[in-house]
């Protein structure tokens, strides 16, 4: 039955497309124009200075991420929300497939010696930050990367989420005043002991004290190092990929099958007394039930590994550790941190570059955004035109727009008041959660678990708990709006 409906979909789209030649459809022309302009811009940048290749790697991988995110409707908000809200494990399964694939490509990149990953310190902040983040994503309708690809579909509500994430993070990081009174004295004392430059004033502002007085005192690492498995192949593949990512993902997939898929599968297959083979076929059916999501997960995993490899190779070629050094060589020193660095993860990341956008705008408006560790010491506030990871985010929007136009799914959507409030408040919660957890669903989960850093699984647990609470709150909101009228929603 569902297959019939899928066929109907294909027919509807296909008949519309058949009326005109491929190049005669406006959507295809716009999609081609986006790719052509990105290519022209890339050629222009390289003509100015070939070292812009470092930034262009972010642009084109971003474009690739955007294409596959939109193709598979790949959104980690959907992964946790749809599971609790409507009992659909489709996206959670796709996400786990991507985790397994990326863990293998990340291991291969580590064997090649160009892995750019840095482990996250493990602590309670991840769980709490992820919980706030997970609550927020239910209301915004998309995770950090999901909001970008939905912006590429023409959804201006998602653009509002991105703006809210950007400014809320910048404000939280630079916030000082009454919030300082909530900071434990032990954090202030520990931050003072770090002997940071005076202009950072690390004993003022809750975020500086949280980072210097708490996070920097924590330990983190990759599973291979923690287990003492230091072989060139066994460390990355056996410890980090197999034990750290693949086995936990498979266990979660078995759990998802039993809790959310098995009942419906056995009913559809008319199996009353299932045996082990039936369950294995059921798990395979769950994996393949949404072909696009599974393919997107597979391609995103490979792409993320390739991105890490390409950036690592360029760092070796230019003999740098950070893009800030290259910018300084090219005489673009405005916006660099006091260490001459900028945010340059070398892999898929979302929220930190968005925080830089917000901070850059606030800085231009006259607010001092550099007297803190996050921007002043570590990430800098580069002009968005030379912010390499920022261009990755723009690339995601453009890539998603290309495929949405091509699939006739692009549509400008202006949010109503309810959606706009949800976007702004939810985005602010996502920004707060991302700063407390030191990353979002990509930087603190996807990129960590796939590199043998178990802190990412803690983030997933927190995000799932937050998603569960968010769905409860959203249901309450729907019930409240419906009142007692049977035909009211």
């Amino acid at each position, binding site marked *: 039955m569902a297959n019939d409906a899928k066929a*109907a979909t294909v027919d509807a789209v296909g008949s519309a497309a058949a009326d005109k030649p491929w190049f005669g459809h406006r959507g295809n022309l716009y999609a081609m124009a986006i790719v052509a302009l990105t290519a022209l811009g890339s050629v222009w940048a390289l003509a100015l200075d070939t070292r812009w290749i470092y930034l262009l790697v972010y642009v084109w991988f971003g474009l690739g991420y955007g294409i596959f995110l939109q193709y598979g409707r790949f959104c980690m908000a959907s992964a946790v929300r749809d599971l609790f*809200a409507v009992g659909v494990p*489709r996206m959670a399964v796709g996400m786990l497939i991507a985790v397994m694939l990326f863990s293998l490509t990340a291991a291969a990149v580590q064997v090649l010696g160009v892995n750019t990953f840095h482990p996250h310190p493990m602590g309670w902040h991840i769980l709490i930050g992820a919980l706030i983040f997970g609550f927020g994503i239910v209301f915004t*309708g998309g995770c950090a990367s999901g909001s970008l690809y939905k912006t590429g579909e023409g959804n201006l*509500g998602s653009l509002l989420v991105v703006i809210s994430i950007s400014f809320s993070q910048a404000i939280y990081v630079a916030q000082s005043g009454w919030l300082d009174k909530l900071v434990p004295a032990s954090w202030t004392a520990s931050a003072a002991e770090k002997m940071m430059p005076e202009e950072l004033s690390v004993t003022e502002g809750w975020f500086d004290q949280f980072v210097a007085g708490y996070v920097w005192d924590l330990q983190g690492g990759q599973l291979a190092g923690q287990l003492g498995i230091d072989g060139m192949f066994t460390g990355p593949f056996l410890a980090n990929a197999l034990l750290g990512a693949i086995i936990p993902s498979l266990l979660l997939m078995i759990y998802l099958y039993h809790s959310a898929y098995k009942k419906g599968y056995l009913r559809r297959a008319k199996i009353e007394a299932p045996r082990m083979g039936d369950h294995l076929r059921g798990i395979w059916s769950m994996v393949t039930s949404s072909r696009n999501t599974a393919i997107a997960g597979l391609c995103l995993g490979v792409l993320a590994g390739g991105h890490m490899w390409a950036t690592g190779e360029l760092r070796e070629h230019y003999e740098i550790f950070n893009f800030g050094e290259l910018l300084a060589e090219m005489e673009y020193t405005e916006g660099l941190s006091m260490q001459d660095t900028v945010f340059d993860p070398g892999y898929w990341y979302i929220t930190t570059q968005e925080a830089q956008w917000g901070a850059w705008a606030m800085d231009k408006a006259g607010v001092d955004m550099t007297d803190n560790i996050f921007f002043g010491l570590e990430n800098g506030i580069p002009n968005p035109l030379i912010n390499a990871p920022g261009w990755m985010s723009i690339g995601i929007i453009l890539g998603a727009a290309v495929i949405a136009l091509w699939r006739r799914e692009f549509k400008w959507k202006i949010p*109503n008041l309810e959606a706009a409030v949800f976007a702004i408040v939810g985005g602010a919660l996502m920004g707060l959660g991302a700063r407390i957890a030191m990353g979002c669903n990509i930087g603190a989960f996807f990129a960590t678990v796939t590199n043998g850093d178990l802190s990412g699984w803690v983030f997933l647990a927190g995000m799932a708990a937050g998603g569960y609470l968010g769905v409860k709150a959203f249901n309450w909101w729907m019930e409240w709006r419906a009142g007692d009228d049977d035909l009211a*929603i």
Partner: protein
Amino acid sequence: MAVKFEKVGDHDYMLDVTGYVCPHPQMYTKKVMGKLESGDVLTLLFDNPSSGESIVAMCESEGNELIERTNENGASKCVIRKA
């Protein structure tokens, strides 16, 4: 722009969540399907592409029949018969 749910025939209902993004379309669909009787038909209108995948999966999971699914320039329609 508001969510619209109305009875359009003896056993036919229409839910219009056009303009809404995730999670509204799938959660309102779940809520409405819970109100309908077996055999009732719901025509669902929406324009959030990613909700479509979740709604199809929800139909499969709950055994409801997806009679028709179309997409034209970002506007989608699903016709669902409750099991």
